[in-house]
C-alpha cells in the first residue's frame, strides 16, 4: 500500500519533472526555430538584395539618370510639343530629342585642357567663355545646347568627368523655309513666338497634333514661280496665296524673302515680316472687282451702260487718269478689261459713299482679319471717308489692305456671293458651316463678275494669265507706292488675282510683286499683266497637274464662258 503510494508519488514526481523538462525543451525548440527562421529571412533578403536586384540593368550603364540633374529642360513625362502636318499629312514641324552638353565645374579635373578640346569640337564656342564656365563656382553650366551624335562621341573621348549630357527637345522643320511665315518659329524652351507656333502654343504643348489646310506641293509651286518672277524683274520682295474660294482654305501662302525657321534670330526683319498678313498695300485696280460688284448690287443696270472716260476727273487737287487710256466712252466690260480708273471712279460715284463703304466693310476689307495667325495688320482706311475717297477707293487707291484680305474678298464674290473667312487649320466640319455664311452679293452679280473676270484674261490686260483649257479669269493691279507721302511712279506694286475654272470657280491664286523693274523683253513694262499674270498662269498649270484637274476639251461649251460680253466691246482700231 505504502510502496504503491510511493511508487505512485515517484511516478507522479517523475511525470511532473519529465513534463517540466519537456516544456523547457519545447520552448527551446520554438525559440531556436524562431531564430533560424529569422536568419533564413535575413539570408533570403540579403540574397535578394545582393544577387537578384543587384544585377546592373541596361539603363544604368554609362547613362546619366536624368532625375538627378537640375531640371531646366527636364521633359515633362509623356508630353512633347506636337507635330504640325500639311493637309496630306506631310510633316511640317516636329520635335526631336537631341543631347545638350553641360558641365559640373566642381568635378572638372583640368579646365584648360577640357576647354581647349571643347573649342576644337564646337567651332562656335570661344575658349575664354568656356574656360570661365568650367571654372565657375556653380555646380551647373550649359556649354552647348545642341550636340550632334558625332560631337557627343568626341566629347566623351575627352574623358572629363565634369562634362555630361542631358536630353533636350528641339523643334525641327523638315521643309526648311518653305512654310516659314505660316508656321512661324519658337524659342529654345518650346514656346511659339510667331505664326501657328504662337497662336496654337498651348494646344501644341499639350500634345495635340495639328493639320493645316496647306498643300506642300502647291506651296512649293507658288514659291518657285514667285521667286522666278522676282528674279526676272529684280524685285526685292513679293507675296502670294492660293485659296479655295468655296471655303476659304489656304492651300499655299508665301511671303518672300523668307527665313530659316531653325535660326530666326539670324534673319533680317525684312525676311521675318509676313507680307501676306502684316503688310498693308494699296493694291490698285484689283479693287475694281469690288467697286464693279458694288455697282451691280446698287444699280440694276445692263452691261451696255456707258461711262465717259474721255476726260480725266478733277476733284479738288486730285486728277484721276487712266493708265491704259482709251479716251472715249466705255461700256462696263470695257471699263473692266481696260482697267479704266475714270470708269471705276464713276461707278463708285454712282454707288454712293455710304453704300460703297458698307460694301467694302461687308467684304471684310476695312477691319483686321479674324485669322488663325495672330500677326494681322489693321487696314489703313481713310478717316474721315470723304467723297474723294469713294472715287479713289473704287480703283484701289487711298485704302491699304493686306493681300490675304483682298484674296478673301475676291473669293467671297466669285464663289457665288458667300462671305468666306481665311482658314489655315484643317477642320472637318468646314463643309457644313459654309451654308451659314452671310451673302455679300447676289448670285446674278457673282455670275456677271465671273464673266467680266474671264473677259480680262481673254481680251483685256491679263492675256498672259491664260492657261489652255483651265478657263482662267482675273484682274490685274498696278499701284504706285507711296514714298515720303507722295506717289512714286517708279516704284510699283504689281499684282494679279486669278481664279479658275471661271465657269465654276474653285481656286483663287494671287501674286503680288513689290517694286518690279521693267525689263528689255517686257518693253520696260512692269505692270501686273507683265509681272504677276504669267507667274499666276504657271502656278495654275502646276496646280492642274498636281491636283489632277483636267482641262476642258478643245470644243467644250465651258471654253466659251464669258464670250457673250464681247458684243459690248468695240473692236480696237489697228494702231
Amino acid at each position, binding site marked *: 500500500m505504502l510502496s504503491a503510494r510511493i511508487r505512485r508519488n515517484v511516478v507522479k514526481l517523475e511525470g511532473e519533472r519529465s513534463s517540466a523538462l519537456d516544456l523547457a525543451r519545447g520552448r527551446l525548440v520554438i525559440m531556436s526555430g524562431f531564430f533560424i527562421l529569422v536568419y533564413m529571412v535575413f539570408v533570403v533578403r540579403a540574397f535578394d538584395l545582393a544577387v537578384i536586384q543587384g544585377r546592373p540593368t541596361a539603363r544604368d550603364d554609362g547613362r546619366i539618370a536624368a532625375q538627378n540633374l537640375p531640371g531646366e529642360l527636364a521633359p515633362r513625362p509623356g508630353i512633347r510639343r506636337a507635330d504640325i502636318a500639311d493637309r496630306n499629312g506631310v510633316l511640317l514641324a516636329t520635335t*526631336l530629342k537631341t543631347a545638350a552638353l553641360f558641365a559640373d565645374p566642381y568635378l572638372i579635373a583640368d579646365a584648360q585642357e577640357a576647354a581647349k578640346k571643347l573649342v576644337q569640337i564646337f567651332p562656335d564656342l570661344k575658349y575664354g567663355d568656356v574656360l570661365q564656365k568650367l571654372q565657375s563656382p556653380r555646380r551647373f553650366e550649359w556649354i552647348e545646347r545642341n550636340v550632334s551624335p558625332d560631337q557627343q562621341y568626341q566629347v566623351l573621348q575627352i574623358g572629363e568627368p565634369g562634362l555630361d549630357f542631358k536630353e533636350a527637345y528641339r523643334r525641327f522643320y523638315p521643309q*526648311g523655309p518653305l512654310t516659314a511665315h505660316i508656321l512661324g518659329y519658337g524659342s529654345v524652351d518650346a514656346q511659339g513666338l510667331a505664326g501657328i507656333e504662337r497662336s496654337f502654343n498651348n494646344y501644341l504643348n499639350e500634345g495635340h497634333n495639328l493639320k493645316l489646310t496647306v498643300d506642300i506641293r502647291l506651296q512649293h509651286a507658288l514659291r518657285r514661280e514667285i521667286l522666278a518672277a522676282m528674279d526676272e524683274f529684280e524685285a526685292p520682295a513679293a507675296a502670294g496665296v492660293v485659296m479655295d474660294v468655296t471655303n476659304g482654305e489656304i492651300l499655299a501662302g508665301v511671303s518672300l524673302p523668307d527665313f530659316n525657321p531653325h*535660326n530666326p534670330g539670324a534673319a533680317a526683319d525684312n525676311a521675318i515680316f509676313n507680307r501676306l498678313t502684316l503688310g498693308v498695300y494699296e493694291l490698285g485696280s484689283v479693287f475694281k472687282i469690288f467697286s464693279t460688284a458694288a455697282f451691280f448690287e446698287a444699280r440694276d443696270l445692263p452691261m451696255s451702260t456707258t461711262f465717259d472716260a474721255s476726260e480725266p476727273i478733277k476733284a479738288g487737287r486730285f486728277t484721276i487718269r487712266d493708265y491704259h487710256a482709251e479716251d472715249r466712252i466705255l461700256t462696263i466690260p470695257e471699263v473692266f478689261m481696260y482697267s479704266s480708273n475714270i470708269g471705276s471712279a464713276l461707278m463708285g460715284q454712282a454707288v454712293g459713299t455710304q453704300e460703297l463703304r458698307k460694301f467694302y466693310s461687308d467684304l471684310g476689307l476695312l477691319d483686321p482679319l479674324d485669322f488663325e495667325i495672330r500677326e494681322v495688320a489693321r487696314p489703313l482706311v481713310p478717316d474721315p471717308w470723304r467723297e474723294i475717297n469713294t472715287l479713289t477707293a473704287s480703283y484701289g487707291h487711298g485704302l491699304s489692305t493686306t493681300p490675304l484680305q483682298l484674296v478673301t474678298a475676291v473669293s467671297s464674290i466669285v464663289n457665288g456671293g458667300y462671305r468666306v473667312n481665311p482658314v489655315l487649320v484643317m477642320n472637318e466640319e468646314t463643309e457644313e458651316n459654309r451654308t451659314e455664311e452671310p451673302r455679300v452679293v447676289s448670285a446674278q452679280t457673282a455670275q456677271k463678275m465671273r464673266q467680266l473676270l474671264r473677259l480680262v484674261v481673254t481680251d483685256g490686260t491679263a492675256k498672259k494669265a491664260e492657261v489652255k483649257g483651265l478657263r482662267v479669269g482675273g484682274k490685274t493691279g498696278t499701284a504706285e507706292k507711296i514714298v515720303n507721302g507722295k506717289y512714286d511712279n517708279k516704284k510699283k506694286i504689281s499684282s494679279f488675282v486669278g481664279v479658275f475654272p471661271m465657269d465654276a470657280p474653285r481656286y483663287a491664286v494671287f501674286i503680288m510683286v513689290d517694286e518690279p523693274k521693267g525689263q528689255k523683253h517686257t518693253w520696260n513694262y512692269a505692270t501686273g499683266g507683265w509681272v504677276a499674270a504669267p507667274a499666276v498662269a504657271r502656278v495654275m498649270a502646276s496646280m492642274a497637274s498636281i491636283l489632277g484637274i483636267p482641262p476642258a476639251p478643245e470644243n467644250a461649251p465651258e471654253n466659251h464662258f464669258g464670250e457673250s460680253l464681247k458684243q459690248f466691246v468695240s473692236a480696237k482700231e489697228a494702231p
Partner: protein
Amino acid sequence: MKLLRPRTFIIFALAGLSGAVLLHTSQNVQLAEERLESLEHSLAREREKTRMLRAEWEALNRPERLERLADEFLDLLPPAPGQMALGDKGLLPEPAPVDDEGGEGYEPVLQSVTFETAKPPAPKPAHKPLATPRPPAAPASEEKATPPQEKAFGDLLNELGRGG
C-alpha cells in the same frame, strides 16, 4: 510534447513552402518588371529613332529637292494641263479582253521556254543622253549631287537652337 505533433510539422512545412513560393513569385515579378522596363526603354528608343527617320525622310522629300533631282536624273517633265485625259471619254484604249474560259483564243499560261547561252551584255546607254555629251565626269555628278543633300539634314539638325 504536444508541439511536436505531426500536425505542427505539416504546418511548418506548409509555411516554408508558401514562403518559398512567395519568394519565387516575387522574383519572377521582379524579373518581369525589369524586362518590361527594358522593353519600354527600347520601345521609346525605337520610337525616337522612327521620329528622327521620318523627319529625315520628309526633309529628303522636300518638293524643291525632288524637283531638282528629277530635273537632273529623269527625262520626264510634269504633265502640262493639255496632256491630261479622262479615261471615261474614250480617249484611252480599252484593256484587251481576257478569255480565261479556255475558248478559242485560249493561250496556255505556261509557255515553252528556249534557253540561250549567255552573251556578253550589250553596252549600257549613257546615264542621260544629252545633246552635248557630258565630260567623262558624268558618273561622278551623281555622287557630287547627293552628298550636299545628305549633309543638309545633319546641317539642319545642327542649326537647331544655334540661335539660343
